[in-house]
């Protein structure tokens, strides 16, 4: 593994901040084409004329100004979506026809993979080469997956207990509000938009204010593919204004949100006090990774490190609590620290980089403050703990040991490259520790023992359990939270069903030869 000579790896014991990790960007960033709200098939300025800045986290500099959607813009977008749902062709098309348009959209996205990958990289500080080969093909894949499901939305004919003929119709739920986060602007866009499109819904999507660029680009391609005007509306803006307008809107039939637990709570509250729209929430996590004595220590250390450092730790399923059985603890800790020191932090456009900058100043400062809290709480800082360079929002891979379950760094979602390492003796203790969290999003288990794997996978209160793997996502694999990690599932057919209403139709039947 190559490390940057001036990067974090060299300065573990040095008190001075390392020089900038930025090499010159090897990729020419394309001009930004779309900066306005996408409503009813048109790019339009916000009604107020206001704009906000979206910032390059490598430098903290402004990339471009974006029209700022507010309540009045959300109203216009909802009207367009309402009209498209109530009177437009989209829900009245067969699933087959919707699928064909979606397939075309997926093809267009793949054709533009490089450009849209660059948008996410520059906007979110994500690794360009990874986004290009992972995130963007996954967007096309998710769209194709749900396109393939559009003509397979089956209701059931029921076994009524009396002389009735009864069946269920799975109907599109209506106008959907989507609010998506900045950590996976493309993946989250696809996870929300593709199943709701397949279901026949129309929608208003608010991307995160940090990362509005790719969503607008996708909207442009959606129009090219033939998605009718008003079906997909994208309104960039801030949570307290645009986001709040969506969640409290009287004419939105469903809200789907991915983001922090605090905001999730506010959204559910707004939904409850407006029109009782059903809400699905995919929120924070403090996911445990349990490594048992029989594990291959080297592989387990790789997995643990990837589990916390992938996407700079800005991933809700990050393995931010690693529980290691005492028999291998010391060896594991040593390997983990070695590997963390070799991890390459640098410009996300540099193919050698494994970790780019945190998304913005807020996140950057929050993470650094949690590192301070960890030290104050008495945890041992094994490696990392500082910013990298003096420009942008780069942070060293950071590992704490001697962490107690009740410490804040073991309870709170830090959403950065900060790992809390803990030791356990027995399987019961591991399960208890893993479940000692208000969150329940994901968990990992590393063991060769089939009984351990089976017992732990049922015992952990989390929406997805990875056995001897981590981040094993798939279009087909639903995921979402237990407890305060939210409710509802994205991906898989579960991800489609939340955009459907179930209607039972019942009629008496006379002289049926069977019941």
């Amino acid at each position: 593994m190559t490390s940057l000579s001036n990067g974090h790896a060299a300065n573990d014991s040095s008190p001075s901040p390392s020089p900038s990790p930025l090499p010159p960007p090897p990729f020419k960033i394309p001009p930004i084409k779309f900066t306005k709200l996408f409503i009813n098939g048109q790019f339009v300025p916000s009604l107020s004329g206001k704009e906000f800045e979206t910032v390059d986290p490598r430098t903290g500099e402004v990339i471009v100004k974006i029209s700022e959607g507010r309540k009045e813009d959300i109203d216009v977008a909802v009207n367009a979506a309402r009209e498209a749902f109530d009177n437009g062709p989209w829900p009245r098309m067969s699933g087959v026809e919707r699928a064909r348009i979606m397939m075309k959209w997926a093809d267009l996205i793949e054709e533009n993979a490089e450009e849209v990958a660059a948008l996410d990289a520059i906007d979110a500080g994500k690794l360009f080469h990874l986004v290009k080969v992972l995130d963007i093909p996954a967007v096309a894949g998710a769209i194709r997956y749900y396109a393939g499901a559009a003509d397979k939305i089956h209701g059931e004919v029921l076994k009524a207990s009396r002389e009735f003929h009864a069946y269920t119709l799975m109907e599109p739920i209506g106008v959907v509000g989507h609010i998506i986060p900045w950590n996976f602007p493309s993946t989250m866009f696809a996870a929300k938009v593709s199943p709701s499109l397949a279901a026949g819904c129309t929608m208003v999507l608010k991307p995160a204010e940090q990362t509005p660029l790719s969503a607008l680009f996708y909207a442009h391609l959606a129009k090219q593919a033939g998605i009718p005007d008003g079906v997909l509306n994208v309104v960039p803006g801030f949570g307290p204004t645009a986001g709040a307008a969506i969640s409290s809107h009287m004419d939105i039939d469903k809200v789907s949100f991915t983001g922090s637990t605090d905001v999730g709570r506010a959204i559910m509250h707004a939904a409850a006090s407006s029109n009782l729209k059903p809400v699905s929430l995919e929120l924070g996590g403090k996911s445990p990774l349990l490594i048992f004595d029989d594990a291959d220590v080297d592989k387990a250390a790789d997995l643990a490190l990837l589990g916390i450092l992938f996407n700079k730790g800005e991933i809700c399923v990050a393995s931010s609590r690693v529980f290691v059985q005492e028999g291998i603890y010391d060896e594991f800790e040593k390997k983990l620290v070695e590997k963390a020191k070799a991890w390459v932090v640098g410009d996300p456009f540099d193919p050698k980089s494994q970790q780019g900058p945190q998304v913005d100043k807020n996140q950057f400062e929050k993470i650094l403050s949690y590192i301070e809290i960890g030290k104050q709480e008495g945890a041992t800082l094994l490696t990392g703990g500082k910013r990298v360079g003096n420009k942008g929002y780069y942070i060293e891979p950071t590992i704490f040991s001697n962490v107690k379950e009740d410490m804040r760094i073991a309870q709170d979602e830090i959403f950065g490259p900060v790992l809390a390492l803990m030791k356990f003796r027995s399987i019961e203790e591991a399960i208890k520790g893993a479940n000692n969290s208000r969150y329940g999003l994901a968990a990992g288990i590393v063991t060769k023992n089939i009984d351990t794997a089976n017992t732990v996978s049922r015992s952990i209160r989390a929406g997805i359990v990875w056995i001897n793997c981590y981040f094993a996502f798939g279009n087909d694999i639903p995921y979402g939270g237990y407890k305060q990690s939210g409710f509802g599932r994205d991906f898989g057919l579960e991800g489609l069903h939340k955009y459907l209403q179930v209607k039972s139709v019942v009629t008496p039947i006379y002289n049926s030869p069977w019941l």
Partner: protein
Amino acid sequence: MAARRLSWLLSRSLSAASGPDSLLHSLGRNSGGGIRKWKRFSTAAAVDEVIIPQVQIPYTQHLIDGKFVDSASGKTFPTYDPRTGEVIAQVAEGDAEDINRAVVAARKAFDEGPWPKMTAYERCRILLRFADLVEKHRSELAALETWDNGKPYQQSFNDELPMFVRLFHYYAGWADKIHGMTVPADGKYHVQTLHEPIGVAGQIIPWNFPLLMFAWKVGPALACGNTIVLKTAEQTPLTALYVAKLLHEAGLPPGVVNIVSGYGPTAGAALASHMDVDKLAFTGSTETGKIVLELAARSNLKPVTLELGGKSPFIVYDDADVDQAVEVAHFALFFNQGQCCCAGSRTFVHERIYDEFLEKSKKRALKRVVGDPFKNGVEQGPQIDTEQFEKVLRYIRSGIESNATLECGGQRLGSKGFFIQPTVFSDVKDEMLIAQDEIFGPVQTILKFKDTEEVIRRANATRYGLAAGVFTKNVHTANTLMRALRVGTVWINCFDVFDAAIPFGGYKMSGTGREKGIYSLNNYLQIKAVVEPLKNPAWI
């Protein structure tokens, strides 16, 4: 869909003799210049000058292990143009040895991969690419289909090719949605079901819808990760070879789909009785279906799905819109020259509207445009071959002899090819042969009924149970009949509405199993239960 097809047929029949058609011009040559008026019900030629299809016949050999190869014996057989009875091409004639070579290739492709070992998404992408290629070659394929089969080109091009593409899109979408289950057991066990591909599938398809039957069989088998040996009907071997080539262009690994042309008693029997074929699917006559099932039983007990004959009732109540019912009943029987297993071949009409219905049905049959299927506006082409042609004429004679009233038609049309006049019988009694047997030709038999109980009894009094049509505005009648009729498909106020998602298959001697829809996947999957003990589970 049927409505669209109907309106197309209607508009075409009304304007049959007017206007040039770009399809016709791009596709065929009309040396007569201008559009001829065909003579209906005359004994003159149904086809004066045969339109020559502008399409090559690129493939006539078997497709085995990704390569076109001759028969082991070197033998060939002729495939005919049913418009003239003349030979279109000589095609490799497969026998047991060719089937065996194809099974060996399919076995290897299944056991060693890469097809079943690919991700479902990769299989999905190959099927999608294939659908795109078929769309690109739509006009050649439609022309080849019509040339070999005799069905109207417009039907091939406007309905069957798009449906073929639709079917592969549909099955591509299934590839990554084939879910097993986790199962609650009584005890501390973790139980799962794995839905595994069944292995090498043998498929034998008929001549009436060569491409669509290919899609019904090949689509689900491939989506589930199987490999295939498919035998086409000897009457229509051409289009399957063409599309199978496109499948390989789309990225299908060699050996996954193997196509063998040949006859039933030789190639078909070899496939049905092969010890290394894991599953057999057959569409065709009930007689052959019995033989296929016997061969499977005597060899390796391979599971068999059968989609066989029918004598489907089409029931019209007195509250129905008569004009619409007449049109749909006409379509239900005469579509595809009457060569549909689900043809509405027993038209039961309520006594209160019987006379009106009969008069209108006769008028409609007389208006039916029969002629060269490549000609724009033609609704009905020739029957598939001499054998079918003779058989249909025999049944017409039988109808006359048993004292049914021949309202119209009854004769061959022209002196060349296998054209038969649209034929309508009235005063048909349940016990007559024409009301009992599958005629598989353009012969409509109209029967009278009084009440629901009676019509249910009579409609069910058949060895077949493939489909039924019900025309009524009364929701109670509709609900009662939909459950009382012992058939695999009930069309209410419509007929022949097919879709990839709608399962199709028979009760009774119309067959076993269902094709299309989610149900079709079951034909190509093995279900494996996996059971593991649980130690100290948090819940069970």
